[in-house]
């Protein structure tokens, strides 16, 4: 009884959070607090990447510890054509067209997911976690080696993506784009979760052998989910590059992948609005802790341990009852 009440309160809270996020530009203008608009855009961007991860972990039961790689892929797919359109060279790649950037981000993200996913899905469980981590780190080193595009230091975006009818230099319009895409991503998740594909995916999570015996190509289904998940991540990367106007290999670092997983666990894996709650929780926590102390990773790390222990303790307690 009390749990149901809590559940409803959480739903109301999450609905409020979504409304708050969508109205953030108006609120920020009204309260004259542009800083909070910046925070809200960051939440929307990370939440979109987390929606992708939630599709994989929540529905497919696959924990990827390399999802930050897709943010980096999307970001570099924006920064590299922009660089060439301003400074010349590589005419076939040079463009300031935002739709081209997005398309390139989705293609590269999808391809990287297809190749690394095909390899990593030869295994499950802990091997899958370690492999996705290793492939993301490979990308990290690859990006570090790109001396033309700043190497280790990364590279600033000297012009944001050009989109018809939108000016991304305007913080409010940038935010509406991010929030709009997040909404689209959430709806896509909802659609997929209720579709035949989503049901098969959940089946592959619960009883892969039975699904295989029923004739479903289990590995293919999981790979499809992985690719969609990676593409959502690279879309978030495209947004992130345009939001911060800066890309660097550090975006692919595995600690960021860990933060994305933390968001999913915080919001509850497989819950529709979980990624939004998790992303908001993480970003606000990080803002709050890092403004209080430079040692913010100490309380954050302890909290992470507590969340993991608590989350692992829940099923055991239910078993006993």
């Amino acid at each position, binding site marked *: 009884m009390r749990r149901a009440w809590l559940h409803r309160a959480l739903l109301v809270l999450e609905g409020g959070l979504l409304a708050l996020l969508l109205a953030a530009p108006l609120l920020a203008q009204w309260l004259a607090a542009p800083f909070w608009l910046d925070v809200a855009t960051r939440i929307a961007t990370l939440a979109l990447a987390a929606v992708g991860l939630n599709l994989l972990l929540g529905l497919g039961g696959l*924990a990827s*510890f390399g999802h930050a790689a897709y943010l980096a892929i999307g970001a570099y797919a924006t920064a590299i054509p922009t660089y060439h359109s301003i400074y010349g060279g590589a005419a076939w790649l040079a463009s300031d067209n935002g739709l081209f950037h997005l398309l390139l981000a989705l293609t590269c993200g999808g391809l990287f997911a297809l190749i690394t996913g095909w*390899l*990593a899905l*030869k*295994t499950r*469980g*802990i*091997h899958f*976690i*370690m*492999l996705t*981590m*290793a*492939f993301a*780190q*490979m990308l990290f*080193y*690859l990006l*570090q*080696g*790109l*001396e*033309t595009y700043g190497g280790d230091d990364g590279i600033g975006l000297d012009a944001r993506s050009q989109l018809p009818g939108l000016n991304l230099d305007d913080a409010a319009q940038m935010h509406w784009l991010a929030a709009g895409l997040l909404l689209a991503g959430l709806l896509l998740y909802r659609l997929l979760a209720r579709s035949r594909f989503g049901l098969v995916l959940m089946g592959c999570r619960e009883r892969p052998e039975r699904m295989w015996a029923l004739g479903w190509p289990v590995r293919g289904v999981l790979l499809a989910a992985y690719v969609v998940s990676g593409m959502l991540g690279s879309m978030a990367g495209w947004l992130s590059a345009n939001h911060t106007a800066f890309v660097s290999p550090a975006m692919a*670092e*595995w*600690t960021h992948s*860990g933060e994305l*997983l*933390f968001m999913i*666990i915080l919001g509850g894996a497989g819950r529709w609005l979980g990624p939004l709650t998790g992303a908001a929780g993480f970003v606000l926590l990080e803002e709050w802790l890092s403004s209080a102390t*430079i*040692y*913010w*990773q*100490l309380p*954050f*790390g*302890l*909290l*992470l*341990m*507590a*969340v*993991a*222990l608590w*989350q*692992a*303790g829940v099923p055991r307690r239910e078993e006993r009852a």
Partner: protein
Amino acid sequence: MSAEAALILTQLLNGVQLGLLLFLVAAGLTLIFGVLDFVNLAHGAFVMLGAFISATLARWTGSWLAGVLLMLPVMALIGMALELLLARPLSGAHHHLAQVLASFGALLALMSIAMLLWGTQGMSAELPGWLRGQMSLGGGIALPAYRLFIVGVGLLVALLLHLLLRHARLGMQWRAVAANAQMASALGAPVAWLRLSVFALGAALAGLAGALMVPITEASLGMAVEYIIIAFVVVIIGGLGSLKGAFIAALLVGMIDTLGRAFLDDALRAVLPLELAETAAPALSSMSIYLLMALVLIIRPAGLFPPPARRRP
């Protein structure tokens, strides 16, 4: 002996040395996984802590060797604390995601603590005289004494670990816990203490790797995140839970990484235009070990030497 041959020999030595350092890190990781079924992301933090603690103790005692030796029990205690705190409540395969998250949290917390204690600056250590110079091997070849020392320590540890696992009572009990912890407990093996001892050994080995790196690269906070992924690559190639696999894979990875960085440049220049070779070589050499991992995965998804399957009650 020609200069080229000497260069190749030096690079081979560097490869073996890196491989053995990686083995020290990967051995603990694979033992902890093999016996406890626990994935320890905080293992990289053990490397970093070993480096800082040994450098600090070396400063207090005035002797590098004493610093390294005194660091080992400290690291063993830290390892035991982590076992009690995280590995014990989160044991079992159904907790793998929670293990990864919790030990990631532990890694962040330990890094912050290290930053509090030692600051963001690196920390160096002074080697004793007998390890500093070059060691002549005859035939006009001289190799750095310290690198030969690392190779010697690495091989000695590998031999001792092998003897411990195969021929000592403790190793036998570890293997019994790995195969079936409940049965081992029923037969009177002190499982709780055995779990602690595996973690203590793993932490001490990782700390040793960190301490041995200090004279080459200095102790730094970055060590905590740098070595864990490459150690993962090693245990994936070798087979998760296998010590022999970790040893062979570590040498393979160390060798390929070192030789790739040293010679890929020239090799590519022979077949590619100069400009392309110069951009491709650094990227390719840093990716080489991951390509090796992908190759192994295609042929043998469970690694080169997968350990026998665990019996789950």
